Every structure is written in C-alpha cells, then in structure tokens.
C-alpha cells in the first residue's frame, strides 16, 4: 500500500510539513490545521464525486463530528484528542450508515438535495435548542494527548497531519480495490454493474458511509483546531456548499488533491477576508464560478499539466 508514487509522495510531504511546521509561524500552522482537517471531508466527497454523486449536505456529518466533540467536552469533560476524533467519526459514521439506506436509492440532483434537507433538519434542531448551545455554540477546551496538555498547537498540528496522511493512504488503497474501482464504473453504467452481479446500492451505501466517517472526523478535528463550534460555521447549508466548493477546487484526480485544495481555500479565504472585509463572499463566489467554468478538473488538473501527466496515477 506504500508502493505507488502517490503513497511515496504523501509520506515524504507529510514529513516535510511536520518538520516545516516546527519552524513556521503560528498562523501558518493554523492554516494547515484547518486545511487538513477539512481535507478529510473532501477525501470522502471525492470518492462520492468519482461515483457521480455530489452531496450538498455533508455539513450534517461535519457538524455531527464537531458537535460530538463539543458535547463530550462540555458535558463529560473529555479532552483526549483521539477519543474526540473517534467519537466524531463514529457518531457521523453511524448516522451516515443509517441515512445511507435512504440515500443509496437516489442519484443526481435528488441525492444532492436530500442531503441538504437532512442537514437543514440538524441545523434547525441545534439552532433552536439552548442545551445544544443554540446559535452561540460552544467553546472547546484545548485537547490533551495521552493526558498531556501541550504548550503549543504544534503537537495537534502533527497529529492532524498524520491522520490526514493515513486517511489519504487508506482512500488511495481503497480506490485500488474492486469496490474502489467500481466508483467510475457505477458513474458510467449502473445497469452493467448490476448485470455483472454486483449490487450498486451496496457499493454506494459503503462509499456514502465512508464519506460520512471522514466528514465526521474532519468536523472533530476542525472543532479541536478552532476551539469553537457554532451551527452557522459547522452545520449550515453554506458549510455544505463550502465543502463541495473545495472538492471542485481540488479536483477528483488524486487523493493528494483535497489537501492542496483545502490549503488553497483557507489561504484564499484568509486573504479575501483581510483585503475586502465587505466583499470577501464576492471573491469566493467569483473564484468558485471561475473554477467550475475554466478548471473543471480542479487544481489537480493544473498540477498534472505542470508535473507531466503520468505523475501519481
């Protein structure tokens, strides 16, 4: 599972980033933490996208992950980074598995919209429940690592990077399995897949569940690196929009793409907000449209052009 160029690159890049992070200023470390946290969710959406499915509601699972951390923290005082991460991923994964029974029967726009609808229900419930923090959300205490509470953000940054790395490797491997190869196959022709004796519904259900686990983990990591959750920034439909935005921005070409895409997104947003506090949405929206029109393959397609097609295939 480490024997292809993508895997090798991931390993080396992770090393460089972890080392570099030790010398980089805090805000860069933050950008990487936010970026890589989100990238986890993008990985999952990428798997779905390759199958021809786009979910416009994965903020539901992202939010579940984030709020799992928040609830654990505020109600039970759980602060261990791994417990929090697992909790987020599991909660989202279970929800995703159950909802998957509905979702696997839908395609195209209906799939996208049903996800939106379900995410809105969660948004509504959270916003309107005082015990869930209502619109204020929760502040999240600093995460501990095996009982130790680190002075700086660096350890968390390393952990997030390594989790991102392992997720990327796992997905990279998954895409090589029969299941994984079926992604494009299903997008191309479900009838044939069925007549080959393979259940499209099961395949999609699995991919959906995977994507929700990743989204939940992403939410958990994001909550920990931000130290704050609120429905507006974690569950609202605009967040789902952002996730898809970054997916398109990254491009489906390779598991590396989500990480690059997410970083670009964070930096872009930071500067848009800094340069045009009253028009940063406009900048984001325009970028989005430009990508959709002129760079359908996302950033990755650029990289492939630069780095020569055969790279990391």
């Amino acid at each position: 599972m480490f024997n292809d160029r993508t895997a090798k690159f991931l390993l080396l890049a992770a090393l460089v980033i972890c080392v570099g992070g030790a010398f980089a200023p805090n805000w860069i470390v933050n950008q990487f933490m936010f970026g890589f946290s989100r990238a986890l969710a993008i990985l999952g959406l990428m798997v779905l996208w390759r199958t021809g499915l786009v979910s416009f509601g994965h903020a539901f699972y992202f939010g579940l992950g984030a709020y799992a951390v928040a609830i654990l923290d505020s109600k039970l005082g759980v602060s261990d980074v791994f417990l929090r991460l697992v909790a987020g991923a599991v909660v989202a994964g279970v929800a995703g598995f159950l909802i998957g029974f509905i979702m696997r029967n839908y395609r195209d726009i209906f799939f996208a919209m049903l996800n939106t609808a379900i995410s809105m229900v969660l948004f509504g419930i959270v916003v309107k429940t005082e015990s869930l923090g209502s619109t204020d959300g929760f502040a999240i205490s600093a995460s501990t690592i095996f009982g130790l509470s680190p002075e700086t953000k660096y350890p968390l940054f390393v952990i997030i990077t390594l989790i991102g790395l392992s997720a990327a490797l796992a997905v990279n491997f998954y895409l090589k399995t029969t299941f994984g190869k079926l992604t494009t196959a299903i997008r191309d022709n479900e009838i044939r897949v069925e007549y080959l004796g393979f259940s499209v519904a099961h395949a999609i259900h699995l991919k959906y569940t995977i994507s929700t686990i990743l989204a939940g983990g992403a939410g958990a990591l994001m909550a920990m690196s931000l130290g704050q959750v609120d429905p507006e920034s974690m569950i609202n439909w605009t967040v789902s929009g952002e996730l898809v935005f970054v997916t398109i921005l990254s491009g489906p070409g390779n598991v590396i793409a989500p990480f690059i895409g997410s970083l670009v997104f964070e930096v872009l947003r930071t500067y848009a907000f800094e340069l045009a506090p009253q028009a940063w949405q406009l900048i984001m929206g325009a970028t989005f449209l430009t990508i959709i029109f002129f760079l359908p393959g996302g950033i990755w397609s650029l990289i492939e052009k630069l780095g020569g097609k055969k790279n990391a295939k």
Partner: protein
Amino acid sequence: MEAALTILLDGLQFSSYLFIVSAGLTIIFGVMKILNVAHGSFYAWGAYTAAFFIGKFSDMGLPDALGFLIIVAAAIVVGVILGFIIEQGILKHMYERDEVLIVLATFGLFLVLEDIILIAFGTDPYFAYQPMALLDSVELGGITRDVYGMTLIGVAAVVAVGCWWLLNRTKWGTLLKAVIFDREMGISMGINVPLVYTLTFIGGAILGGLGGAYIAPTISVAPGLGTEVIVLSFAVVVVGGMGSIVGAAIGSLIIGILRAIAVHELPQVELFVVFAVMAIVLVFRPEGLFAPAKPRKI
C-alpha cells in the same frame, strides 16, 4: 373562537408568504432540474429595489398608492434582468454538464449577488412602510391586523391560480409539462427547449423578486435577508415535493398553519415546526408529498 380565527389568519398569511417565495424555486426545479440557490438573492433584490423606489417616490411627494405599482414593477424588472443575465450568461452554458455542478454554480452566484447588494445599496436598512400605512389596519378576531399583511393571501392565491391556469389551460402549459416530464422527449417533439428554459427561469426569478418586493414594506430591508428565505422555501419544496406547484402550496399551508398554532399555543416549539415537518416527510416520503413522476436512472 377569536383565537382560532387569529391563528387561521396568521397561518394563512405565513403560508402565503412561504408559497410566493417557494413557487419560483419549485417551478425552476420542476422544469430545469436546477436547485437554484440564488433564489434567495432574487428575493433580496426584489425587496431592495421595491424599498428603494418606494422610498424615493414618497420623498418626491408622489402618492403612496404608487407603491403597489412599484412592487410589481420591481419584481418584474429584477426577475427579467437578473433572470436573463444569469440564465443566458451562466446556466445556459452548463446544461450539458452535471446538474449538481449547476447547483454549485448558483451557490457561487448567491455569494456574489449577496455582496453586490451590499455594494449597490449599502449597509443601511431601507424602510418602505408607505403601502402598509396606506392600507391601515382593521379590528379582526379581537385584535388589530394590518390589511396589507392580509392582502398577501390574495397575492398568493393569484400566483397559485395563475400557475395552475398557465400549466393546465394554455398551450404553453402542455409544452412545459412535456419538458418537465422528459427533456429529450420535449426536444423530439420539436419544442424550443432553450427558450422554455430561459422563460421559465425568468418566471421563477420574477416570483422570487415578487416575494421580496411584497414583503419589503413590512420589514426593515437589510443585508443578508436572502439567506433565511432559501432555507424556508427549500423546506417547503422538500415537503411538498421537488418541482410540484401543488406540493409547494400544500407544503406552505402545512408549515404555515402548524407554525401559527405553535406560536400561539406552545411558543417554545415554534422554531422546530418547520424542521419537524421536514424531518417526518423525509423519513416517510423522501421525494416529498407530491413529487412529480421522475424517469428513474435504472
């Protein structure tokens, strides 16, 4: 009894508002299979345009009755201009691409339009109370009601009947239905689908604008008022069935009346109603109550 009447009126009033804003969304979806996230922006632009000119006119000392003209004009102008530009400038070039990409494009548009409003109209809220003041208020069910608010019910009725008539009593309607059922079929029948699309989108945009323009006099027209609307109208469309006018009407009624009951009898659950209804429908009938027949993929 008085309470019942009040609840009914409140419910109808809110339902009407919901219906007007969601009708456009569901029509566009039904015909073009586009979930138009930018619909909220049409609403906002309608509200701003109306509020802006109502204010200007009354400053010029023109009769406030003109307000109603402005409202209609604003809706049409906004719908035609924005609708045309967006459909011709962006969406038209995407119909061959994945439907979902189009949704995303409208999301991008939504972000852009939100900030353009800010640049065009500034951050200061606009007040266009004149039409509301003009119609004054009446004693009804033991409380005072503003007549303007109740005319909303009439407007909704007109929109509903109008849509029904257009779909079921005109040649246009039959063409639309053909396209709605199956785009390819429409083309093979020699229907000018691109034109149908353009007009449909403009029509939907006008309805979105009308919602905003008509509500404008009752609210403080401030930035960000589009975002709420998307959520509400989307909920209605999901409950009623994506793409179904009847569905939108029923959906609006269910949500509107239930909400009114909640506000009066059990305020603490008021905020859940919309989403509770949505959740229940999603569990038992994910395609909505009145989902139009859709050709399955397999």
